[in-house]
């Protein structure tokens, strides 16, 4: 990923995460999109970062391995059983 040294690209880079997070106003988004339409490097950077964010968010949607989930369930059952037994004494 090359860093552009053009001032307009540097300014664009500063707002890129806010843009990807939907934190920018419509006019600021439009300015970034207009810049990217004419700048291959920045367009590629935006797409690259968008893909990276998408990959990370994909992990959240992938359940943990079943073996781990079963151990979690088993530990909870054991803890609650122990607590119930202690309470009944």
């Amino acid at each position: 990923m090359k860093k552009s040294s053009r001032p307009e690209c540097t300014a664009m880079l500063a707002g890129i995460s806010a843009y990807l997070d939907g934190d920018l106003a419509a006019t600021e988004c439009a300015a970034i999109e207009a810049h990217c339409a004419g700048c291959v490097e920045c367009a590629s950077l935006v797409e690259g970062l968008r893909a990276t964010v998408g990959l990370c968010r994909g992990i959240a949607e992938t359940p943990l391995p079943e073996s781990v989930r079963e151990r979690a369930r088993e530990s909870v059952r054991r803890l609650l059983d122990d607590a119930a037994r202690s309470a009944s004494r």
Partner: protein
Amino acid sequence: MERLLIRAQEAAYRFSLLVCGHPEDAEDVMQDALLKTYQHVSQITDPAAFRTWLYTTVRNACLMKRRLHAGEPSHFESIDRGRESADGETTVIDVADSARPADERMMDGWIDRRLRKALHALPPAYRLIIVMREIDGLSTREVATVTGISEANVKQRLHRARVMLRRQLEPS
């Protein structure tokens, strides 16, 4: 109650595995989170506050593990710049992976190896932010509460972490 405890354990495991990178430690952190959550559960009145409490607890448990095992390198090199040799050539920093083969298989089945290595190439402070914001879905404010840094700092680190991660994921 049972569902809350299971969810807390799973969150603790995922966080610990992604941040610390050691499945055995993640198991311990998961157990620790279970006991602490059980003890804390009666005080839960606000689900949002519970989330920051849980992540603060798990983060502290991970830090303790890291101190005990000293599994992290003693210093970090900037992956922004890579490693520069005497003749000025820059090479990409490769990250050692100390997991056992069975753990490797388990983790490969869950998360793409390239992404896992790229995450572990990030300096811990940046990895922490990426995991909490992008993967666990905490808000900027929640991450700021857990880490004790300002929201502006969280945003700045998140941006840098994304750029570093993207660079790691680029084909060499």
